[in-house]
């Protein structure tokens, strides 16, 4: 191959340098946030004059932060479950179905991913205001489910496309009804895809801020909304601590995902 890594010669050094620069550009702000959350300066000065855990102390002592985190987790979990269930049905019809407009339907289901989030947010906010769902948990979950749906559909359709339908046919010849065959054979066989779908959908909701700002009410705030609000009200290192926890939890989920995928696909 023309661009074989082993044959790049001195260009390899340039390539490594460039990649490192991009990675640093993307990751350093996150690293700084984490460092600042342990800094003793009230004004987020860097380098910090000393190290402290007091911002975390304040964070955990403040019930509004805990509330926001629990709300986030609750909404993300519900959105993830709904997105996976709907995603499963959608994927079966997209992969197995033979009907006109299948590709159109696929495109439609994936639009939340390409549509500017703020446009979607305004549209659904206006709609929910009219039907009385604005500021409710139900409305919040519906909005996030729609946003999470592409993240569920993509891994599930990929897994289903990689699954040989003959295996399901074999289960049916063995005496399983078509429903039994799907529940006992097909679903377990594509569990990696389903699992990825669940994690990605959860994360899609967990760190979503734009739609969340529109859906939120004074009594219903997710963690990203609370962070956003605090940033505007008073720039306290508590925000850095909250952000660090958010990053940490996301990182944990990604690591768990990677480990489980490796274990499942052994």
């Amino acid at each position: 191959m023309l661009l074989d890594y082993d044959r790049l010669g001195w260009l390899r050094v340039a390539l490594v340098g460039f990649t490192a620069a991009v990675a640093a550009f993307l990751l350093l702000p996150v690293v700084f946030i984490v460092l600042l959350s342990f800094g003793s300066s009230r004004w987020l000065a860097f380098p910090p004059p000393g190290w402290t855990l007091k911002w975390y102390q304040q964070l955990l002592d403040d019930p509004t932060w805990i509330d926001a985190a629990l709300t986030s987790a609750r909404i993300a979990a519900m959105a993830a479950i709904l997105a996976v269930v709907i995603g499963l049905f959608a994927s079966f019809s997209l992969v197995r179905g033979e009907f006109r407009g299948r590709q159109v339907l696929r495109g439609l289901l994936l639009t939340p991913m390409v549509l500017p989030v703020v446009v979607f947010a305004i549209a659904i906010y206006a709609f929910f205001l009219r039907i009385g769902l604005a500021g409710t948990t139900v409305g919040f979950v519906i909005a996030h489910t729609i946003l999470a749906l592409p993240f569920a559909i993509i891994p599930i359709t990929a897994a289903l496309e990689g699954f040989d339908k003959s295996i399901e046919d074999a289960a049916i010849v063995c005496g399983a009804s078509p429903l039994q065959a799907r529940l006992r054979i097909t679903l377990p066989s594509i569990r990696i895809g389903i699992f990825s779908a669940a994690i990605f959908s959860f994360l899609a909701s967990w760190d979503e801020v734009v739609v969340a700002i529109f859906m939120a009410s004074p009594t219903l705030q997710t963690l990203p909304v609370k962070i956003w609000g605090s940033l505007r009200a008073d720039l306290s290192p508590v925000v850095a601590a909250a952000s660090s926890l958010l990053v940490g939890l996301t990182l944990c989920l990604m690591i768990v995902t990677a480990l489980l995928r490796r274990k499942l696909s052994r």
Partner: protein
Amino acid sequence: MTRSFLSIRAVRKTFGAFVAVHDVTIDVPKGEFLTFLGPSGSGKSTTLYAIAGFQDPSSGDVLLEDRSLLSVPSHKRNIGMVFQRYTLFPHLSVAENVAFPLRVRRRPDAEVKRKVADMLALVRLENFADRHPGALSGGQQQRVALARALAYDPPILLMDEPLSALDKKLRQEIQAEIRRIHRETGVTILYVTHDQEEALHLSDRIALFREGRIEQIGTGEDLYLRPASEFVAGFIGNSNFLAAEHLETAGGAATIRLADGSIVKGVKTTQAFDRGQKARLMVRPEAFRLTPGPASAELAVEFIDAAFFGDRRRVVMRTAGGEELDVRPTSDAAEPHGPDSGRRIFFDPAVAFLFPA
């Protein structure tokens, strides 16, 4: 009405304007090993799928012990099937795979356990019970699939080119296994393949498919020694075809003129020919002799090439008319076989066949 075990009655399958299977009728006695042989697209798999219930025939019927199967959904037909592709359940162990059909039938645990052990012993994979399919070779996977398909004692076992993904040596090994399992279980097997050697090796009878119809059905010997058409003769075994002109037929023996003008008498034929009708003479490669014998017809030939295959030699000759001949005398025959082996070869007209051109 004869009470045959499995009866395929005028099964027809169309896809739009395309007719995949034309009114195929076969009666299968209990315990028979019947092979559907034919080139791809000849309708053999479609017929098998109609029996399995994956494709509903457009017309016709499939009867098992005089009861129609067509209104029974696939999962209630109680038929065993081994597929072309590997279809073991990837998340279950070998033992759980074999147990699956028994579990969906809610058989008691003790019975499931005993049956799984029996089946794994039958396919000689007792030591692989706890493995997952991913850790098995292709041949082992198909043997597990066989064990799974037989675990619930189905009256019929369908096999859809189960060995086509395996290499040649392994194929022969598993063919021997399948023969043994057929012998030991007595199950009725319908087997689909495009490999004529496999069909000859395994089957009691072979149904040769061509373009959605059965060209001929019979034992391997029937098809090889008494082919009903040029297609059968060409598909089963190796054949040489020589252009000929029919002169006359008396008592099933035809007299013909070959392209080089020589007259051959006493050629076997089952079909009626007109005087002067163009025809094709089929001679098996092993029917040729390099030395004259009793009742020999002869051909003027030119030596092209020779190769040694252990049990046989293979000699390529060319007739005066430019037709290449595949000639396979046995290698221990004290017959000359080199370029100096003369200019003539011989065959017995009684083992040659005449077909319409």
